[in-house]
């Protein structure tokens, strides 16, 4: 069991090391997020109140878009360097490969958000009810996204037209998680409704559990060559 976790940690560390060397993954995701918010501001920012109300949703749209970019990018690296082939013939359980990649993706996406969300909050002068809860919302939202995203990236990595296929597959499947995190963030930004808050939490947790289980089971079938 200990070995299992060590193997996962090594895989995660590998991705972090690569990114520390290149420094482009995290930076490009963050830059993309800020730029898209800017574009949104130009497009619909004429009425500031409207933009403020839409902010939680916009934050997550931006996250989804930059997440899809990041996912595709992280996997292209693996394919180009031939790393994926080496990983597949290595004597580890397939779930280790999935968890390693998924955790690395979660960490990158979460780091981007941890930098990006406070910037938004600062610009729009929003007082968050609870920073801890905000962190958990980001965490759980990201876990769902990256488990689905990792599976679908691997799935589409060897097919034609993968760049467009990934968002087409991932967006409709992410709708429940998107609804939950946006409502939760609205609650945290603009006022807490206890009952509503908890029912969204339950749904988000349920979604994450179902998705995580299915993707980890599905991964074995997807990578067998």
């Amino acid at each position, binding site marked *: 069991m200990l070995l299992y976790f060590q193997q996962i940690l090594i895989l995660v560390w590998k991705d972090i090391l690569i990114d520390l060397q290149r420094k482009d993954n995290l930076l490009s995701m963050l830059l993309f997020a800020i730029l898209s918010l800017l574009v949104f501001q130009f497009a619909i920012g004429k009425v500031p109140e409207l933009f403020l109300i839409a902010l939680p949703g916009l934050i997550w749209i931006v996250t989804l878009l930059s997440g899809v970019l990041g996912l595709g990018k992280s996997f292209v690296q693996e394919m180009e360097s031939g790393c994926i082939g080496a990983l597949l013939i290595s004597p580890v359980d397939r779930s280790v490969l999935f968890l390693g990649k998924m955790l690395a993706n979660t960490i990158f996406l979460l780091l981007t958000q941890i930098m990006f969300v406070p910037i938004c909050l600062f610009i729009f002068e929003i007082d968050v009810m609870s920073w801890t809860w905000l962190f958990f919302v980001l965490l759980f939202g990201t876990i769902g996204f990256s488990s*689905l995203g990792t*599976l679908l990236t691997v*799935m*589409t990595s*060897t*097919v*034609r*037209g*993968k760049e467009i*296929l990934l968002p*087409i*597959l991932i967006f*409709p*499947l992410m*709708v*429940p998680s998107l*609804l*939950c995190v946006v*409502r939760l963030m609205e609650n945290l930004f603009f006022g807490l409704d206890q009952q*509503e808050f908890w*029912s*969204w939490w339950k*749904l988000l947790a*349920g*979604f994450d559990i*179902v*998705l995580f289980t*299915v*993707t980890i089971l*599905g991964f074995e*079938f*997807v990578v*067998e060559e």
Partner: protein
Amino acid sequence: MDKMKKIIIYLEWGSILGLTFCVIWIFLILPIESSQGFPQKIMYLHVPTFIATYLAFFVVFAFSIAYLWKRDLMFDQIAKVSAEVGLIFCALLLVTGAIWGRPTWGTYWVWDARLTTTLLLFLIFMGYFLLRMSVSDRDKEARLASVLGIIGCLDIPIIHKSVEWWRTLHQPSTLFKVESGKASPSIPQELLNPLLASIIVILVFYLYLLILRFQSEKRKEELNQLITETQF
């Protein structure tokens, strides 16, 4: 093989006669419902397509699991053709819903849980076919599509739940409530009978399309095999 042909012919005539019978019953014999008027008649197409759509995608779910378990390409073919037929029924469901909605609620589209879920189901399975089209290897196509089919079908109840909460918690949907004629017990027996009849007919029609498509898909594969054999 001959037995299969017989079944197809039976189903074909069953659906032709059944559909004609239902049309005559619904349009010529049945009185016009008092509260909704003539547009209510689209219910006899709408509700059966709803049932057929969800049945079709449940078949996709079941046969995707069966494929991953047994690795028999026949299971994947059934899942594929069921998804195809399901997608057609789903499109029909969305269109008839919009046509019904306009005179009844005054709008073609509303972000209600049932409508949104159906739209997303449609979009997920459009992606499913896009994925199938982009893979050239048959076994790989079956594997990837099965995994996506399972995830897609499992996601549907969660999507439904989340959209339902999104509507009810956020803005109480007192404006209107979607009623599937089937569930409400207030529907008079006179209207219920043709509905049940059309449900049965549409299900026969679904089965007919499913088997027909399965058969043609099988022939296509046989042909492909013959072509590759003669090339060597």
